[in-house]
């Protein structure tokens, strides 16, 4: 059992969730309520990571974040390290890869709020900001929470893109999914089995808890 790898995976998942939470709320709400030209294109871009092979996304990330890219050079100038094959690079990759999981459920959550309720909030004198906190988020939060749980569980299970952008550096980029792959390659079936079981348990637990919570909210508001 590779505890370092598990710890790294959990850290990666937490960072991804923390950074994607505001993105999920802002983009989900924006796509739910605003009509604009080019909206289908934006929605398609958000969904793209879901259909592309992780290797394609990983390849483009290697190109755009690599040492010779403008971003890679800027990062090197500021932090004196490289972005690819590092934990920070993994976080960037993970954020991009999780956009559909973070935004789609939140968008659905906001879309489910009747337009009349938002109008009522405005007619109660609530500014758009106050309406977000008092009316929209309390009603859309099951969607936002679902988004975050999916993002968390999905990050734990990321494989292809991690391998492309991060490689398999112990303590830096070797997540639990990579560690399992390594163990299988080394014919260490016992370790692979333990780690797989742990991953199944964590993922199942998180998702089950979310479903239980949202069922409770549904009953309360029904």
């Amino acid at each position, binding site marked *: 059992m590779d505890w370092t790898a598990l710890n790294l995976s959990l850290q990666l998942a937490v960072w991804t969730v923390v950074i994607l939470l505001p993105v999920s709320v802002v983009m989900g709400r924006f796509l739910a309520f605003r009509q604009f030209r080019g909206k289908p294109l934006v929605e398609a871009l958000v969904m793209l990571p879901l259909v592309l092979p992780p290797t394609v996304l990983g390849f483009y990330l290697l190109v755009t974040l690599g040492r010779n890219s403008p971003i890679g050079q800027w990062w090197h100038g500021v932090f004196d390290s490289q972005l690819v094959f590092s934990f920070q690079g993994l976080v960037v990759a993970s954020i991009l890869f999780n956009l559909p999981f973070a935004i789609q459920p939140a968008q659905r959550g906001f879309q489910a709020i*009747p337009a*009349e*309720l938002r*109008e*009522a*909030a*405005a*007619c*109660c*004198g*609530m*500014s*758009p900001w106050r*309406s977000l906190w*008092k*009316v929209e988020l*309390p*009603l859309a939060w099951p969607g936002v929470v679902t988004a975050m749980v999916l993002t968390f569980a999905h990050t734990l299970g990321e494989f292809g893109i991690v391998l492309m952008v991060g490689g398999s550096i112990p303590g830096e980029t070797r997540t639990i999914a990579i560690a399992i792959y390594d163990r299988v390659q080394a014919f260490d079936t016992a370790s692979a089995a333990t780690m797989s079981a742990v991953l199944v348990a964590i993922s199942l637990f998180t998702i089950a808890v979310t479903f239980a919570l949202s069922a409770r909210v549904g009953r*309360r*508001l*029904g």
Partner: protein
Amino acid sequence: MALEVIARAGSPIALDAAFRVGHGELLALLGHSGSGKTTLLRTIAGLWRPEQARVTVDGTAWLDTAGRVDLPAHRRRVGIVFQNYALFPHMTAAQNVMAAMPAPDPTEAARILDLVNLHGLAERRPAQLSGGQQQRVALARALARRPQVLLLDEPFSAVDRATREKLHGEIIALRAHLQMPVVLVTHDVNEAQLLADRVAVIERGRIIREGTTAEVMADAEALRAMGIRELAAMLPATVVEHLPDGLTRLDAPTGPLFLPGVNSEPGTRLRVRIMAHDVILSRARPEGLSAQNILAGRVAKIVPGAGPGVVVHLAIGKHEILARITRRAADQLDLKPGETAHAIVKSMSVARDHVAPRRPR
């Protein structure tokens, strides 16, 4: 002063309307669905902007497309009751009311909930309240903001008939506390006649007739859009006594009225709506009739309709009873302005929800 509205638009709905509502006055915008009446309400609230419009409240412009003034909805002090109430489902009744206050004040919320007869239900969520109770919460929330204008968008259409009657009575009683202009959107002629001080009939985005409720409701031409069967006279009356046989005797300026058991204490001042098509006319005072109400008057005018009917205005003192009869019957009776006639009204033809309290002075 008070509320003044001018609105013109070509799409998505044709609109060309102007009206004003004074302080403490209730104007009913009466029309079929799709006539544009709700759009006018949304224009006042800032939820929709016509191509050309001006909305001023006490002289201050909320919207002026020519002067480029357009306050966002949350900066217009309106109270609005939506057709389906639009209560916040995650908040209790009290929280819903406090959501409309600049500074939430539980004591004030309780006072407003008492005002709309919701004592003891402050901690319930909307899902735990009946339709009528939800409507009262919506009204309380609309009032909590101390609005400069109160807007009611078909607020009684989603409740059953008995609840609606009760809510009508409550609104009439509540109006003693309301100083602001009130705009009621409705397609229910009875509701407009019972509740409004003035009525504007809207058809395809235009106001085809506007005036006091008595004027508009006696105008067969104006009501044609709503269905001529809705033509009715409104009589003030006071409850005198409940009789042992289940009838209630009322005192009206036209003489005594007998109606099926009215649910009000003796002394209560009421308005009674008498449908024109339920009234029979007779030249001589009839005898041997089952009808309990025979009102003597003088023919004021006879308005011919488009079809075989005429509307006879029978003046009784300074009030009028309207009778819709056939042209043939009017000819047979040789009815002419100035001549006497008797209006016959069956007690049982006056529906319960056509009797409502009068506004307290």
